């Protein structure tokens, strides 16, 4: 049986502002299995980014249960969540979110420097390997402002995978890119998936969503559909034929 990476049960998130109560997510239940490639889509304000934030432990649910790698994480302390984010989750953002004062190598090293179990040389090596994987080894000394959007996103992907996380969360990774660079980035995610990564990607681009194995549609804070995509079926057919 395929291993379950994360499991949400009746997860809800309510935002309070003044007298207003906004139910961003309502009773969401979801399972993500190892090496799955999931696209979460939906219109603006549907709750997909909130869902990704909860999956990434960037925010806490108002109610419900969230198990990551078999452990309940919805009630962990900030420090514990930080440690899990650092070692088990890799983030890719729409606007890259590279630190402008750090060069490419330093940006990729950044999450690794938060770990206490790695030596400097190990950090260097892991960062260099991640950069090699995204074909950015030739730009290690450049600053983000000296890179194109596509290059910045590749560095961001390197940063996300440098620590070999069990889950990669991507929030509109192609949203700020032209079609060529968007294609390259999606190809890179395909490649990572092919190498065994579990990926959850928020997108509202149908073409990007079609590259995933599973498509979850969110509307008004609820999952309205959860189905395998054509690509997954093709993969399954390929597997059968083999």
């Amino acid at each position: 049986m395929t291993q379950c990476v994360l499991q949400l049960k009746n997860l809800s998130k309510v935002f309070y502002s003044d007298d207003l109560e906004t139910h961003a997510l309502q009773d969401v239940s979801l399972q993500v299995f190892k090496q799955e490639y999931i696209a979460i889509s939906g219109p603006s304000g549907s709750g997909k980014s909130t869902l990704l934030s909860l999956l990434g432990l960037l925010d806490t649910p108002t109610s419900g249960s969230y198990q990551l790698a078999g452990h309940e994480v919805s009630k962990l302390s900030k420090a514990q969540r930080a440690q899990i984010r650092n070692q088990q989750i890799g983030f890719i953002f729409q606007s890259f979110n590279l630190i402008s004062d750090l060069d490419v190598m330093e940006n990729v090293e950044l999450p690794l420097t938060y770990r206490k179990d790695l030596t400097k040389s190990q950090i260097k090596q892991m960062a260099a390997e991640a950069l090699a994987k995204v074909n950015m080894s030739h730009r290690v000394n450049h600053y983000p402002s000296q890179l194109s959007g596509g290059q910045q996103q590749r560095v961001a992907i390197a940063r996300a995978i440098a620590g070999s996380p069990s889950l990669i969360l991507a929030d509109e990774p192609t949203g700020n890119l032209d079609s060529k660079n968007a294609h390259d980035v999606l190809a890179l995610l395909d490649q990572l998936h092919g190498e065994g990564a579990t990926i959850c990607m928020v997108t509202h681009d149908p073409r990007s969503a079609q590259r995933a194995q599973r498509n979850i549609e969110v509307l008004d804070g609820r999952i309205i559909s959860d189905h395998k995509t054509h690509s997954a079926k093709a993969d399954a057919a390929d597997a059968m034929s083999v």
Partner: protein
Amino acid sequence: MSIRNDIKYAMRLLAKKPSFSALTVFVMATGIGLSVYLFSFMNTMLFKPLPFEDGEHIIEMTTSINGKRHFGDFNLHDFAQVQANLTSASEFSAYRNEIVSISGRDGARRYSATDARANIFALTRTTPILGRTFNSDEDKVGGEHVAVIGYDLWQNQFAGQADVLSQNITINGVNHRVIGVMPEGYYFPRRAQLWRPLRDNTEQVTREQNSLVTGLALRKPDVSIEQIDHQLNLIMQRLAERYPKTNSGLSAYALTMHMSTADGGMPVVYVLHIAAVLILVLASVNVGNLLLSRAVERSQETAIRVALGAPTGRLLSQLLWESIFICGLGGLIGLLVMGWGLEVTQTVTNQFFTDRPPFWWDFGVDAYTLKIFFAFLVGTIFVTGFLPAWRNINGDFNAVLRDGTRGALGKNAGKLNKALVIGEVFLSITILIVAAVMITASFKATYADYGVNTRNKLIGQIALPQESYATDEQKVQFVQALKTQLSTQNALHDTVVMSRLPGFSDQRPAIAVATQEYSQQNLSSYPRANQIAVLPGSLSNLEAQLIEGRFFSEADNKAQNHTVIVTDSFVDQFMTTAQPLGHKIQFISENGTKGPWFTIVGVIKHIVQNMPNRDKEIKMPSVYLPFAQAPRSSMFIAAHINSDMAIAKAALTKAVDDIAPDLPIFDIGSLDARLSQRVAPLRFVGGVLMLFGLASFLLAASGIYGVMANTISQRTQEIGVKRALGASEQRIIAEFVISGTKQLLFGAVPGLAIGLTLGYAMSAPIGVEFMDVAIAAVILTLLLSAVVLLATYLPTKRALVNEPAYALHSQ
């Protein structure tokens, strides 16, 4: 039209955020008000030309010993040589100040008088409002006794009578014919209310008689004070070669009248000017930063304007108008408060003196103050407008429009913010050290230990007129009679009669200790000490601490008994023996004549006879001798009071009245109050500096907090990213605290270096030890470090309150 729109826009922006506007206006008012105040205050005291034609050229010349400027007087003959050979000055005159008693219908009153050369009035291009000034016949030994009186004296003593010129005035018991009345407000050279001819000259007075004068002259145009000093040095060197016994080591120097009043404290004055500029810079940087944070908030709006084709000039104009309003309104408030402050200063400084301050101490908003005000105003507008403008011009508008994030203006802004914090730390540490030095000096002077008990002592002063008490015998008789009279007054106990009480400096003759070798047999090679004449019983009544030997007895108080008591500082500094009792010392007069040998009969603990702050670096030793052995014209009376002050005052006045009804006893009051008054200028400057220190600390604290909060707020997204990548809160806090500490060090190290240098320059003249400055610097650095760390910690902690998801989407 466009300017009107910009003005309207700037006003609308200010009205939109009233608390922000009020804060910036307040900061600017504080900065401009305090700095202009200090410049105006210093200018009035020390730099403003005297209010006479050619007033800026009037100089005063005094002597120095072994290069140390001590405002000494010239021997009349030496000054005649200066007058003959100093080509860089003209219209030489000379004077000496005196306190005189003027008898009137309601008793005797004390006035400040100046005995001067006939041309002293011509030097100031001032003519009397009534009568005339002296002629050369009156200015010589045997000349007629005439006097020119001041306006105040005319009003007080003669009720402003028009026929004053036909009347006589009794000065120190001698009738003088009033020949002129000077205009209101004329007190030249400092606070004179009465002028008499000097009545001696080199033909009539010998060099050995050592008649002393202070020199006056007009500096020739285009000649600097330094050039005059150089010439004076050469002249005095020649005199030292010709008269080595009296003139060796003696030199002379010129100063403006103002500078001579500064009394060696010019390093303090220059440091205060620097402090004034620094506080203005601090205020400007703070306001600049506040406007900068506004510019950041409006970066998207600015970007839209650029995209719509707004020329850079228009954008700058809008920002500049905002600065103009803030600085203009702040400056105006600062100017008004400062004007009030100068009025208060006038009242406070009038209390520094028992009679009146130097006549040019006329504090108020004058032309110079307004000039400085406008210069500072323009400067602050430039600085406060420049920072936001720089920020906006250098922004990447396209990036702002593209993703609308705060971080889009990123790296340069970060550098600027760091520079602002470093600058604020640097400026505030420098100002705070300077302020701490002055406050320490003020505190130490106010609570100085004079070596005697100064509490519950009523004091008064008497100046015996030369005309009535010409001989030593007459003076001794007066003092003996006074002692008897004082003993009959029940309200007065433990009476003291001394030529000078502790805290009041006396004559400091050269002294030789028997059996000790002195390198050269001239005046400059001998040490000097205060020489105080006391009635027996005075030192014990003041509770001076006897270390060995004994106090004076009545048997000592005879002219032929040559006994002295010295302070332990005298023994430490001038004697090589540990057994001073029985050793002999000798006083040497200014003309080099050696006096009789005096035997040391007692050693007492050091008594501060000078200003306490002047006695810090090197304790000035004192020698006390019985009054009969060194009779003086001027003396202090003190008595312990157990009863009501008014009764004691009446008893003191009666005691003197009973002996000499025409002799005024003046400056009656408590010893503590008089000593406090002596250090009042230092206390006042200390108070002003305390205000400066407090203002700079608040400005720095709020400024640093503002910059840090702004910086951290701009980096909220970065914080979110780092947290998303797994950075713990502690890690984020540590990162910012380390960054804050670095900025602290970059600002504090040069700030400490400059502050300590300035503190060191100030410390000696005002009697603060460098160790005190160093301790103050360490405390202030720790205090400011706490401010920086708190200013870093609190906004960081606040930025971490929300979950990373919010920080990531922060706009």
